[in-house]
């Protein structure tokens, strides 16, 4: 039992290079099944390919699609800024409410298991179902929510939420908040529950009040988690499609036409794949840039701090 066995070359390789076989499948899978199609998309964006029009058979046209998109496509830009606003507002509200709820549960609720599970219900519903459910609830004639909104005077008898252009986006944001705040709560709650006690005790001894403790200790400690939540939610909100498409189809007019709905129309309604690919590519680029900046600024910094600690 005590002898030093002489290992084979293979065994040595297996141990030394152990990282490679562990990380390779994931990398390969992503490369083949996501990056491959992604490059196809990037190439398509520089062609005039259309599934509908036989004259557009995929000839290479350089950056014409992008030029048209950036310079002439007012619908695209409308939906672009609408999407940015949607993401910023929805994710901020989700974050604030989600954080507050997580804090309340962490602070006051001892047996949070059932409570948390029930809170998570909206998140567990398929977005397609959520769209339909809210369409039913907010229907102007037999919608339950419409009825009570009118009963308490939040909505006039002669109007309905999705038929009042000024109410459409706020409603969509509210529904997104309804669905995804639990996700924020869940992850922040997990973060709070794993926080060490000692820094708070130290701060108490140093004479810091609750507010100071919150800003000086809790927020910095939770920073990586906050960053992760904002990043994941931001990315997903940018891709928001199913709910809005089912509830309003982007209307009335273009009031709720988000980028993903615009991209859907170009790709799946008019089958103008070249141009659609250009739209998709722009969307990807914007998300990528925003996330990179955010990641470098927040997440990485906190990772560094962790490494130094």
């Amino acid at each position, binding site marked *: 039992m005590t002898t030093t066995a002489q290992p084979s070359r293979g065994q040595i390789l297996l141990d030394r290079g152990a990282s490679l076989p562990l990380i390779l499948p994931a990398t390969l899978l992503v490369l083949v099944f996501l990056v491959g199609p992604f490059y196809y998309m990037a190439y398509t964006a520089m062609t005039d390919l259309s*599934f*509908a*029009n*036989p004259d557009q058979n995929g000839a290479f046209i350089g950056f014409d699609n992008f030029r048209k998109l950036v310079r002439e496509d007012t*619908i695209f830009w409308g939906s672009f800024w609408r999407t940015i606003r949607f993401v910023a507002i929805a994710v901020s509200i989700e974050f604030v409410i989600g954080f507050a709820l997580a804090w309340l549960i962490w602070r006051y609720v001892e047996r949070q298991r059932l409570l948390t599970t029930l809170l998570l219900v909206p998140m567990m519903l398929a977005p397609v179902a959520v769209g339909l459910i809210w*369409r039913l609830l907010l*229907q*102007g*004639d*037999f919608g339950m929510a*419409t009825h009570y909104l009118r009963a308490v005077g939040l909505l006039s*008898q*002669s*109007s*309905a*939420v*999705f*038929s009042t*252009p000024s109410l459409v986006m706020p409603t969509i944001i509210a529904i997104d908040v309804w669905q995804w705040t639990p996700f924020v709560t869940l992850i922040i709650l997990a973060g709070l529950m794993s926080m060490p006690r000692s820094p708070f005790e130290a701060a108490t001894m140093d004479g810091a009040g609750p507010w100071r403790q919150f800003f000086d200790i809790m927020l910095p400690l939770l920073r990586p988690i906050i960053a992760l939540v904002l990043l994941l939610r931001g990315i997903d909100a940018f891709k928001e499609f199913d709910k809005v498409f089912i509830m*309003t*189809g*982007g*209307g*009335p*007019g*273009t*009031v709720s*036409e988000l980028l993903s709905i615009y991209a859907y*129309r170009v790709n*799946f*309604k*008019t*089958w*103008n794949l070249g141009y659609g690919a250009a739209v998709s590519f722009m969307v990807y680029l914007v998300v990528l840039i925003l996330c990179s900046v955010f990641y470098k600024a927040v997440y990485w910094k906190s990772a560094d701090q962790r490494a130094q600690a």
Partner: protein
Amino acid sequence: MYGNGSRLRMLIATSLLATSAALVLVGEAGAWSLEEAAAPYKGTTIRTIGEALPPLEAMKKLAPEFEKRTGITVEIEMYEASETASKVMLDLNSKRGRYDFILQQHRNVGKFVTNGHVEPIEQFMTSAELRDPEFKPEEQLYQGLWKEISWYDGKAYGFPFTALTMYEWYRADLLSDPKEQEGFKAKYGYDLGPAQDWKQYRDIAEWFTRPDQGLYGTAIQGKRHEALWYEWLNFLYSFGGDMLEVKTGSECGPVIVNSPQAIAATEYYKSLMAFSPPDTLNYFWDDVMALMQQGKVAELIMWNDATYAVAVDENVSTVVGKMGFDIVPQGEGGKVAQVEGWSYLIPTAAKNKEAAYLFIQWMMEYDQQLEQHLNGGATPRPDVYASAEVQKLPYAKASMASNEVAKPKPTIPQSSEMTDILVREISSYLADEKTAKEALDESAKEISAVLGSCAPMKYPVQ
């Protein structure tokens, strides 16, 4: 193939004659039988895809009989309308040939034909082995419907699966109420009855708009959805407007969607919002159906194939026996309804085209058509409409009359793009983002750009 003789014959032949002629033929020919024709394809499975419409569900119920007779299994995939279109587009463009025949809105035919995705039906009809001598589409179908729905550029590519039109639905019980009639006449100076022109239509809508009683004059399908475009087309056509100035759907012509008639039609259309329930900008066919079933609306323009669920089915409707139906009201352009058809088509990449043809041909037979029609379909066969069972349906007459005045719409490859532009722009107008002229001018500009040189704008835009 469709020479003058056959066209002439079609004009003179009544459906009754055609049927009896077919009966005679059976006795004489006898050589062709479905079983024999299908023998080489015994054991194959053919697959199709379509929107989850009642006639498709009826087809699903009929298919086992075909299977019993031929040994050909029929598998039917049912999706929501736009899902069906996406699935089909992906299948055709990847040329993998999953579907042996498809059921598609005729609006898409041009796209399929010009890209070489579907087979002309001619090659099967001329095959002695496949062609049932009793099946004579030149005589047995509404020619206008067939040509609008399944032809492109002078060539037949399939047969109509359903031929849907829209017409006027009204609450017969309200319109015939003596008290209402009295009050209406006092206010508007003429007798209350099913609206015959658009002015009457609006008067009636106004008269019955009583939100405090939960009753509205009409309901328009104002959601940003294709339903909006379909509904709007009825107004556009009967006001004398059109999208393109063409004779058939496969032509590309000047864009006239911003003509004065079109603007008038669109403004009239929006004016009805005042007599619609508050949530009218969120409606598509689903919601107006529900409203009608709840008896909350006096009149509206709606699909013929949806009639069954409001006029006959007591499980879902509170107004069974209270409904009346008529052709769309008169406008400057006459009484013109839009028609939307679904067509049987056979993809080029399909693997069992012959078996698929045999099934389609079988489905076009009188018995199957009758069965489908009675289950909520809309047959393209006049003889089916003529049957006693169909005539019993409360909406049979209006439906038939509507088929007569159905007007074709573009089936050119860019038609979906045109639709998409119009849905957006009209929705913008309804949402007060633009005026009617601005919205239609923008539509004309974009459609002209999409279609290219063949479609200049007849009404220039600054």
